[in-house]
Each structure stands twice: as C-alpha cells, then as structure tokens.
C-alpha cells in the first residue's frame, strides 16, 4: 500500500513538473571559443533559472532579479559601511517569496571545521601537545526595508557557536561564541545628489559593523566566527568612486557568550577617514581614530589613544607592479603610563600577464612593542578593532600573531586557475619587535629578554572556491615552525607541555547564502 502510494506520489510530482515546466525558455549568455569550438556559455544564475523554469517565479520576475547585479544592485542600508562582497549576493529566499524590491531578506550560514595541535597559550594549561579541534558555526539573518529609497532600515542577527571545544585545554572565547545576538540594527538616510552637487551623503544611526580601508584598524570580521559591532552614528560624503570622507562616533559593543551584547559608555571610539582614488598609482587614505576605553577595573589596562595613519597604494593589474604602504602612529596613555606606538606595513607585488595570472607579493610588517616592562612609557601597538586573517594567517582557534610587538617579512604567491578559484601559498618569518614584551595575546613574556625574539616561520596553503556568490568553500593548512623563543626555559615554564613543538593548523569551511 505504502509502496503504491509512494509510486503515485512520484508519478504525480513528475507529471506536475512536466506540465508546469515551460520546455522553451530564453537563455542569456555569451559565445566563447574553447579548443577551436564555439560554445554558448550560459551566464544566467542557475538557481534563478531553475526557479523560472519550474514556474516558481515568472519570466518578468526573473528578468528583474537577474538584472540586479553590478550597477543595478539594490543597496541595503549598510552598503557604505561594509565591504560589498559581504552583503552582495543573490537573494533566492526573497525572490522565492516574491517580496517587493523595498524589502531585503537573506540568510547566511557558515560551517567550519578547524584543528590545531601543540597549543602554546598560557591559558591552555592542560594542552599537553594535544590536538584541539572545533566546529565553528556562524549563522546570519538580514532583514532590510527601504530598497533604493533615501530612508532605510536594517536588522542583522548573528548566532555564533562552536562544538567539540569543551576540553579544558581548548581555546574558546567571544571571538568564537556569541549566541543569538544583534549584529546590526540601524536606520540610514541617503541623499545621492546633495544640493545638486552630484555628491552623495549617508547618515547611519544605531548598531552597525564597519570596514575602513584595508581593515587593519577597524573591520567587520570575516574569517573570525564573531564580528566587531558598534553603537552610535556614522556619516559619509563622497563623489562616486573618486573620493569619500567618513566620520563616526560610537560605543564598541561588548560581546557576551549567551546574554545580549551590551553598550558601555565607558568605551568610546570615534574617528574620521578620507579615501581618494584620483590617481591609480597614488590612491590614498588618511585617517584618525580616537579611543577612550576605561571600562576595565584594572586601571593599568585602560586605554586612551589617538591613532593617526595613512595609506598609499595601487591596485594589482596584469603586467604591472603594485604596492601598498600603510603607516600608523598612536599617542595617548595606557593606564598611568604614556603610550607611543607605531605600525608600518609594506607590500610590493607583481601580477604576471600569464595564464592563471600569478601574483607574487612581498610583505613587511613592523608593529612596535614595549621596550622596557616597568618604565613610564608603553610602546605596544594596539590594532584597535582590526582584522588579521588575510595577511597574517587564519585566526579562529589558531592565529598567534597580532599586530603588536612584531616584525615579519614574507612572501606570497596567488594564482587564479579559474575565475572562481584562488590558490595561495604564503611564507612569513616572525620576530618579536621587543624581546621583553608580550608575544601577542598568548600571555607569554620574558621580561629579561633573554629568550630572544625568534618566533619561527610559517607556511600557509589556501584554496578558495566559489561556486557562486551564494556558495563557497575555503580550505587551508598552516605549518608553524616554532622558533628558538619557545625553547627557552623562561617561556617553556609558561606554556602547556609540548607548546614548543611545531603547530599544524587545518581548516575546511563551507558558506551558503540564500
């Protein structure tokens, strides 16, 4: 009986699909030559096409949604706050639900498995050289109102959690776990032609995530399982892609594992950022960030900084050299000591005009560290709310290297065998800038400086494959050859057993957006 019912259900489904499926449908694409043959390459989005071909959406609706790419993309409220790649993708769910243009709806889920061995952090007391693994899950929902109108609203919720990380030696904090929370909740006002000048201005108020420049000082974290968010306002004015000026005044959001994240008026962050793209060889950014963070009980850790910086760069192009220089200077007080620190970054690259467009890149980073532990001057650079993943290595439960007390030269080779496939190999050498200061946030420090500053070197392999803007995979492996620093007696006593042995880190992740 059951078998018969199943059979008829199958037959009915088949009939329904056959009956509703328009056998003929216009296809859009381009003609390309491959191995001497001309082939019609369909450039349509396969999911939208499937929706149309099965009658889920009408042809008219299909053309509307498939046109919404590139310049026709409908901006959500956070378009000028965050990187476009983070918020621009096909909204299948919205299209499937036949929602009007002025409503935005999207879901995103990322699952990552990661594993690292031979932990070295002082907090990982029971490490014993064991392999530590976790599944990190990050889910987001976006709901926006307003479409292309001047007034817009956005809610973005995020749920970040991890599994397999309950062992005592595991590394787990609010960079990994932050359950059911509000990542963005904001209103925005956009005027695309202020007083007929052709300038565009945007005003945002509420909770928001922000990206500035290359994201070294302020970032909406991408690889990390949780993201930095801020409560306050943000204003920008600019002329297309040529230049823009941004200003903001916010309270950084204090993340909590399970309860709602909170504002804290004892932590204030403000700044201005100017970007100019007038000249391809001299694209420039200039910025100022102010931070007054006095929320910690320990007065010695309270931070009041002014951070000034600038960036000069040229975007990579085949057959041309490219470069990036970023210089950042920090003044103020840390606790009762004066604070003066700086960070310098240099990239020189060349993209070969060859198949796979190989790009060879040389990196150099210098982030100042504290010269003397107990004097009245603090020199450890503070990276504020920056991201590190793309130039230092994977973060998650691994990355030991922070933009503080660090010297690191290195190189990287990037190839793109297909437009949606990126392969990278990176090699960097790591030193402490000041031997007597902390090593990143590991808690390791030899105040005598006798342990030296050789942190070793690492090799990273990475493959990123994007099936589309809605589905992508990311795989990576890092081998960290630990340096002599970790074999010194003063450091050995602070680490979990086996922390001086080389660490291997592996991850595999998949991200789905609908």
């Amino acid at each position, binding site marked *: 009986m059951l078998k*018969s019912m199943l059979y008829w259900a199958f037959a009915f489904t088949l009939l329904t699909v056959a009956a509703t*499926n328009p*056998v003929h449908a216009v296809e859009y694409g381009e*003609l390309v030559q491959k191995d001497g043959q001309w082939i019609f390459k369909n450039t349509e989005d396969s999911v939208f096409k499937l929706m149309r071909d099965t009658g889920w959406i009408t042809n008219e609706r299909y053309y509307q949604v498939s046109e919404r790419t590139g310049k026709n993309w409908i901006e959500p409220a956070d378009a000028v706050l965050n990187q476009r790649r983070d918020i621009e993708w096909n909204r299948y769910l919205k299209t499937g639900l036949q929602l009007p243009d002025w409503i935005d709806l999207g879901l995103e889920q990322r699952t990552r498995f990661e594993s690292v061995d031979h932990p070295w952090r002082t907090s990982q007391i029971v490490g014993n050289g064991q392999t530590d693994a976790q599944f990190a899950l990050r889910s987001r929902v976006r709901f926006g109102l307003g479409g292309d109108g001047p007034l817009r609203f956005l809610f973005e919720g995020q749920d970040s959690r991890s599994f397999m990380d309950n062992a005592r030696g595991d590394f787990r904090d609010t960079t990994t776990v932050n359950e059911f929370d509000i990542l963005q909740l904001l209103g925005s006002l956009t005027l695309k032609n202020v007083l007929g000048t*052709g300038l565009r201005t945007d005003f945002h108020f509420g909770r928001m995530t922000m990206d500035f420049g290359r994201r070294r000082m302020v970032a909406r974290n991408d690889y990390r399982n949780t993201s930095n968010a801020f409560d306050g306002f943000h204003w920008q004015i600019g002329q297309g*892609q040529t230049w823009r000026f941004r200003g903001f005044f916010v309270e950084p959001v204090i993340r909590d594992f399970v309860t709602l994240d909170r504002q804290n008026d004892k932590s204030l962050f403000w700044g201005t950022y100017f970007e100019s793209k007038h000249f391809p060889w001299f694209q420039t950014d200039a910025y100022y960030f102010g931070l007054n963070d006095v929320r910690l009980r320990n007065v010695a850790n309270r931070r009041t900084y002014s951070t000034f910086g600038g960036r000069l760069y040229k975007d990579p192009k085949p057959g041309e050299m490219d470069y990036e220089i970023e210089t950042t200077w920090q003044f103020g007080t840390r606790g009762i000591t004066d604070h003066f620190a700086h960070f310098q970054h240099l990239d020189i690259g060349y993209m070969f005009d060859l198949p796979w467009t190989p790009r060879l890149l040389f990196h150099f980073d210098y982030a100042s560290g504290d010269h003397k532990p107990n004097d009245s001057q603090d020199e450890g650079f503070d990276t504020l709310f920056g991201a590190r993943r793309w130039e230092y290595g994977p973060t998650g439960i691994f990355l030991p290297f922070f933009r503080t007390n660090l010297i690191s030269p290195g190189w990287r080779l990037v190839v793109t065998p297909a437009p949606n496939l990126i392969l990278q190999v990176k090699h960097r050498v790591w030193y402490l800038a000041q031997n007597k200061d902390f090593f990143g946030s590991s808690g390791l420090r030899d105040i005598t400086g006798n342990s030296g500053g050789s942190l070793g070197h690492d090799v990273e392999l990475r493959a990123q494959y994007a099936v589309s803007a809605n589905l992508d995979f990311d795989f990576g492996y890092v081998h960290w050859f630990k340096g002599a620093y970790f074999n010194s007696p003063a450091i050995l006593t602070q680490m979990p057993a086996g922390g001086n042995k080389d660490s291997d880190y592996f991850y595999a992740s998949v991200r789905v957006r609908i």
Partner: protein
Amino acid sequence: MKQRLLAWCLCVIVSAATTPAFAEQVLVAVAANFIPPFREIALEFEKSTGHQLQVAGGSSGNFYSQIKNGAPFDVFFSADMERPKLLEDEGLGVKDSRFTYAIGRLVLWSPNENLITGEETLRSKQYKRLAIANPKTAPYGVAAMQAMQRLTLWDSLQSQLVMGESLGQTMGFIESGNAQLGFVALSQVLAPKIKGKGSRWDVPTNLHEPINQGVLLLAKAKDNQAAKALMEFIGGPQAKKIIERYGYELK
C-alpha cells in the same frame, strides 16, 4: 504493472502537450543598447512560436569579429547598418535579409536631476567629465561626436571627455559618478531601473546622422525556420510596439 504503464503514458502525453511542435533553437547576437527591449521581445516571440532563443549581448564590433571568425550565430542585431552590410557583402549573411529594425535615439543623461536643462548644459561646462562611447567602436559614440561637432563643441570639450568602450561602460561611468553626464541611448535611460530618474536632453536628430540599427540573418541559419520566424517577428506589430516603447523610432 498496468498502473505504471498508465502513469508513464500520462507523463509522455502531458510532456508532449506542453511542447510546441517543431520548436527550434536560434542563437542571437544582440547589440547591448537593444538588450532591454529584446528581453520583452524574446518573451513574446517564445510565447507565440515556442522556439527557443539563446541570446548573447555585447558590442556590435565584437560580434562582427566573432562572426568573421566563425562564431555560429543565426541572427545578428547590430547597433549600425555598416557591419550587417559588410557581413552580407562578405558572404556571411543571407542576401537581402538585412533591414533596419530600429532607429536609435541619442540622449544626454545625468543622474543629477537638476544638471541637464538642454543644449546649454553642454555649453555651460558646469561639469568635470562628460562620458561618450568610443566613436571608433560604437555607433552611438559616432553620433555623440557628430552632435558635438555640429554644436562646435567637439574641440573645446576634448579635455573633459571620458570614453567607454561600449554604451554599457559609458553608462557605468555616469552611474558611478566618474562622469557627471554623458551621451547614451534613450533605451538605456528608459530601462525600468533608471526610467524617470535624473535629467536628460534628447539630442535633436538633425545634429547627427540617423542611428540606423540593422538586423541580418546569417548564412548559417539560411534553413533555420526559427531564425526566419524571428526575423519576421521583429518586423511585426508586437515587436514594433515594444521597440517604440523603449524610445526607438521605426522606419
């Protein structure tokens, strides 16, 4: 067993019923400016005939060289008359199949609602950059150049011109704000996304040679009934109505 046989027969019957008889496929090259109306035309054509269209959109110059290099297009909708004529003369098109399917209209457009008030906007030079399609590759670029020459502005505006390789790129310059205004096709400005936005001046047709856009049945499709049906359809009342709605004139 009988039930299964019945189910499969039903499947075949329903599938057959939904498949128009003798449907064929047509591979069409369409100039970028004509893509917005063509999308509607293609729908109507598909509904009326059941034939399937595969559509490639791009610049006329690029299609011309692709066809010369053996690209198996069936029908070519060009942005000019010259390229279809050349292809016909070179034996790559079906003789006497070529005709003008639309006459393009050139407009000066800006996303700024107050910028363009007419010809005087061009003379006022109250802008930093003016975008046009490259006259070497785009018929609309030629028309823009002719219009500026007749207004005796061509030489004085040289330092302010930015040239797009195609009309699509030209529109991109304007939309991104890299150029405050530019010469584009009226059909682009009447596309649903932009319609009613910004300010525009419809360039009088006496300021440039007519932008006659020609369609050609290509030699490969001389026996393709679907391609022939498309050629007929494009000259028919349904298609003409759509073409006019997108701001083109008809012969």
